[in-house]
């Protein structure tokens, strides 16, 4: 029993599993740690603006803050493949300031 356990115990490598899991979760959490707080709001506002002109879904826009050597990079990717232009440019919040329709 003792010898068998020593070589074939299913728990034998649980520490190795722990190490792998930790490495993965911490890599993810460390990457998110340095993202400034305004990124989600920036992404939402960008979507709003772009939506006035072309029809895009939320997942077609990606905002990332990265580093290239010494330079910080704000990277904005908007996928336009398959996006249709909006039928009327005056939709959305801008409609409020559009000139009123002529009366009479």
């Amino acid at each position, binding site marked *: 029993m003792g010898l068998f356990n020593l070589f074939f115990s299913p*728990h034998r490598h649980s*520490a190795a599993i*722990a190490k792998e899991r930790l490495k993965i979760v911490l890599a993810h*959490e460390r990457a998110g740690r340095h993202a400034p707080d305004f990124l989600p709001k920036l992404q939402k506002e960008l979507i709003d603006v772009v939506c006035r002109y072309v029809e895009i879904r939320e997942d077609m826009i990606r905002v990332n803050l990265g580093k290239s050597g010494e330079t910080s990079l704000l990277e904005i990717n908007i996928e336009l493949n398959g996006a249709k232009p909006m039928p009327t440019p005056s939709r959305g919040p801008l409609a409020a300031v559009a000139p009123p329709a002529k009366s009479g």
Partner: protein
Amino acid sequence: MAKVVVITSGKGGVGKTTTAAAFAAGLALRGHKTVVIDFDVGLRNLDLIMGCERRVVFDFINVINGDANLNQALIKDKRNDNLYIFPTSQTRDKDALRREGVDRVLEELKQQFDYIICDSPAGIEHGAITALYFADSAIIVTNPEVSSVRDSDRIIGILASRSRRAERNEPPVELNLLLTRYDPGRVVKGEMLTVEDVKEILSIPLLGVIPESESVLRASNTGTPVAFDNDSLAGRAYLDAVARFLGEQREMRFVKPERRNFLRVLFGRA
């Protein structure tokens, strides 16, 4: 120049207060005038671990609020003349730990002491952030266990971004890893993360490894910092860690299992 050292971990129950008590005792034994402060407002426990719970009259919050002066609140240890305990309050007002007040008290302590050891509460709320904010040096207490390692990583990130040194663009808080409740027997069996695993994952310098030891519970039962117990492996490991903290080179002890009877290994692992 006095040094402010925070004992922190993120996760609870990993041995912060045990470490704060042992570390302060170890520094005092080495001749440094040391005070250990309890930052866990509302859940005072350092007094029990230090064995001075019946001598608490005034506390940290009293001094911050100006209801008592520092020397009325400081408790002198009966075993070592260099060691003082600064208990916290049992108030439930968690905002009582105002940053300006803490700053003022720490500045006053710096006039009298070589080392100011801050015992942080668990978590990343107000008390824990206040405990680490003024630190020059941090000891990250970690168990070889996934949740503890993850929380330690989080605290390391907070020290790097939210401490006063970070805010003022001063040299960063000096980081030290202390691995506690280490069981070399289970490590050999592959059931526990190794010292090297944790070092590699957290990538901060290792100050020491404290073996899982019955003497730690015995020490807390009797209100004696474990570093005062010469027979305790954990106590000796703490004294080694203190020596390394003071710049000495010491070989890591207690990281390999004690030799065991071959027949016991063969016929089951009691």
